[in-house]
């Protein structure tokens, strides 16, 4: 491990953990503007987290240790995910520990734990949320994997750092397979982050909620951790998208100075990405839950078509 590698790894963790709620706040703000509402402050997510951490946690009488442990596990998974996605630099000492496939596994691990925790108390909404979350997951997971495979086939690597490195250094070519992968990835990230056409993070309407149903029984610090983890997940997904499809401006090995520049570049890219997300959320309506698998299957098929196009055209 080189000192600069250690530095960029630590910086990446610090940036992800501290800036993730900011991204959520930015998306909420953009959404409010677009929908003609008075926007909450950019710092609102931090205030919510602080408030929740200060509150006493009320836990259901029959909750088991699995229920109490799940928020920490989910948070730990998302923290690792943010640590291995090359957002600021490709020189990450932790990156070899988990490649693209392991990253998908990591998200799956978090999903399984939060679903199990939701089933633990045994309420009607919890089990409903768990079932819906797994339903969304079982199509999102392979679609995400296929998206990452499209990039792997182009760069001959599943290591995220190598993918970004090779993508950033190749001549500017338009890969048809990546176009398909991009659409698929957008759909997957909407579904995985509980965004509007699939789920609505701003509602507690029983018939439609997924993410909120999962965390319904949590309060206090557990809820805070889960909310923070959700922000981290959005941050990680945004960074994966940026790293795959807009890989410019990421610092390289042996280039500690570039870190100074990569931070504002990342901030700019995330701001634009957040605005696009708010646009999508404003222009689309929430789907019926049984339309969701079709929506997701579209993403899966597009990703597979992307792979096939790569096979046909060799690009």
């Amino acid at each position, binding site marked *: 491990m080189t000192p600069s590698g250690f530095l960029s790894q630590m910086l990446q963790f610090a940036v992800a953990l501290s800036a993730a709620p900011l991204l959520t706040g930015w998306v909420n703000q953009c959404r409010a503007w677009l929908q003609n509402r008075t926007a909450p402050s950019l710092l609102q997510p931090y205030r919510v987290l602080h408030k929740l*951490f*200060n509150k006493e*946690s*009320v836990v259901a*009488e*029959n*909750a*088991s240790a*699995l229920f109490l442990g799940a928020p*920490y*596990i989910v*948070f*730990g*998974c998302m*923290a*690792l995910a943010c640590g291995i996605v090359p957002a600021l630099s490709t020189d990450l000492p*932790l990156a*070899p*520990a*988990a*490649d693209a*496939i392991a990253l998908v596994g990591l998200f*799956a*691990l978090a*999903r*399984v734990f939060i679903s199990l925790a939701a*089933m*633990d*108390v*045994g*309420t*009607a909404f*919890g*089990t*409903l949320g*768990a*079932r819906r979350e*797994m*339903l969304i997951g*079982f*199509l999102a*997971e*392979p679609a995400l994997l*296929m998206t990452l*495979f499209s990039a*792997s*086939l182009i760069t001959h*690597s599943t*290591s995220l750092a190598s993918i970004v490195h090779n993508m950033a250094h190749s001549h500017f070519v338009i890969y048809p397979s990546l176009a398909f992968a991009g659409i698929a990835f957008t759909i997957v990230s909407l579904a995985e982050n509980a965004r509007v056409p699939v789920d609505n993070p701003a509602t507690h309407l*029983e018939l439609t909620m997924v993410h909120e149903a999962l965390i*319904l*029984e949590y309060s*206090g610090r557990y809820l805070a*951790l889960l909310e923070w983890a959700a922000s981290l997940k959005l941050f990680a997904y945004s960074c994966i998208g940026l790293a795959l499809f807009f890989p410019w401006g990421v610092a390289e090995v042996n280039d500690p100075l570039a870190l100074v520049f990569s931070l504002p570049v990342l901030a700019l890219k995330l701001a634009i990405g957040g605005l696009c997300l708010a646009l999508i959320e404003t222009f689309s309506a929430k789907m019926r839950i049984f339309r969701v*698998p079709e929506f997701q299957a579209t993403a899966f098929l597009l990703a*597979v078509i992307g*792979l*096939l196009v*790569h*096979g046909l055209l060799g690009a």
Partner: protein
Amino acid sequence: MDGMADLDRILTVIMVWVAIGAVALAAQRRTRFVARTLFPISSLLSLGLAASALHAVFMQPQATVLPLGLPGLPFHLRVDSLSAFFLAVIGVTSCGTSIFSAGYVRKGEGTAPGLQCLQYHLFLASMTVVVLADDAYAFMVAWETMALTSFFLVIANHRVAAIRRAGYLYLLLAHIGAIAILLCFGVLQANTGDFTFANLRLQALSPFWASIAFVLAVVGFGAKAGIVPLHVWLPEAHPAAPSPVSALMSGVMLKTAVYALLRVTFDLMHVPLWWWGAVVLGLGLATALYGVVFTTVQTDMKRLLAFSSIENLGLIFVSTGLALLFRSYGMNALAALALTATLLHVAAHAMFKSLLFLATGTVLHATGERNLGKLGGLIRYTPWVAWLTLVGALTASGLPPLAGFVSEWLLLQTFLFTTNLPTSFLNMLVPLVAAAVALVAALSGYAMVKFFGVIFLGQPREEKLRHARDASWFERIGLAWLATGCVALGLFPGQVIVGVSRVTKLLVDFGLAETVRANGWLLLAPTSLQRASYSPIIFLLVVATSIAFTAVAVRIVYHGRQRRAPPWDCGFPDQNARMQDTAEGFGQPIRQIFEPFFRMRRDLPSPFDARPLYRVVIEDHFWYWLYRPVEVLVDRVARLAGRIQQGRISIYLLYSFLTLVVMLLLVGR
């Protein structure tokens, strides 16, 4: 150490197993002695078997000839890296199931414990001999002993008609498979009359005959492995058997079919044709998809696991098919990668599926229920079983950093490394197969969340579950042993691959050991670090550190206050256990999405029913597409044959006389 010693030790283990069985038969009435003394001894023997086998993996092949059986047809036995690997799997798994049985076996569950103990040990011994056999004759004897002993174990509770039916179905399909295997060996010996594997290896068959032998092998071993459409016995026989037996059948016996397929196609035959690989790949993929979709809609916990076994064997066939495909094109490095995925999945599946089957056994004993609709909340009453099962369920879902993920990772890597297959059609097929494999893996996660969540989480759906007792100490040791296996295999895949590469060197002349060693024990990288790497230990460490750090930090910066209260549930009062999702409810989305897979019958209540009844019956299409027509055909043929049976002795004498005349005419010409 002396080279011969491993095989001798293995043979000693087999003999002591048989002796234990004999002692148990003699002491039939003394259940306590059989359970508490004989099974733990047997478990230690399994450990010895595993140790010798692990040693033998790295040794030169050792062979011996036993003067058993018919005169002039002695048993040839041989242990090489391939058989040693499977012996190690048998040893490690049976060590867990035997120690578990010490706490599980009890009176009043069908066959007397002493007799069951004999059958159990004969079953173990026959599986070991199947893997050791070095001639077709010994192989078939062991194979049939394995089928028969497991048949008797399946029908241990033979007073139940459904169990007898399941056993009969199992025996029937086992025999159809055995006929195919017998014919396969017949083709392989190419009229030399010598059935030793050494001779079979020497025969250079024409592509036509080799293909016939290959098809017969796939049918024969596929029937044992539960490959679609020969899978129907599996979901019937596994739930019927006592849990340790289900664990052995699913965890180990199905793997002997994989072993035999590898032995025949990679070791005994030399003219690989590309379509062989494609056939195995296609069958495996169909099986995996079919198995996993059925897994998600099951409502009986052991049936659910049986379908999950079908799925996993499908995945094993997928990677075997890939390996065959690569070998036929001379891409040995890729074939080795695919085979490594196969063997790791064999080991992983043996661990987690045995663990899960044993866990269902404890649940069955604690509650008397197999129906998921009547379970729930057991994590509060049987915490040991619940937490150990969680390890198994996570492994079965293929989640990092456990064992199931490693093989899945290697398999997906194999797809990504595939480039420049000579046929462009195959090149296009590879991404499609990868997509299907990814879908199967994700769906298995769905099924396992359902399995674990419905049994162990939530509120108990029946009052009696509140009195469920946790597993006994022997049972806990057995479960913990297998759970440790799941974790160890997941955390140290590099060490396992070093052993596995001896096997792949034997089969496709290439091993991954050097590359894996070069990259250090911490990182698993099949070729180079730039290409792909995965380190379960770092993965686990980082996640664990961030969990610990978060937990401590939250307590220090804020506080650790916590209060217990009734569940919130959006403020709805009067929650009861019936309001939770049932197993049917959890499977409902899958039932809707994959509707064409099922033959479904639904009885829906009308709103005015005084006692509403809701029922869904899900059946297998294959019964109606394949088995019913065959049944009708057999029935018709039997009726035709019945016409010549008059039941009068004079007519039968006439038949004999006519036969004699015809024979004389034929000979006389």
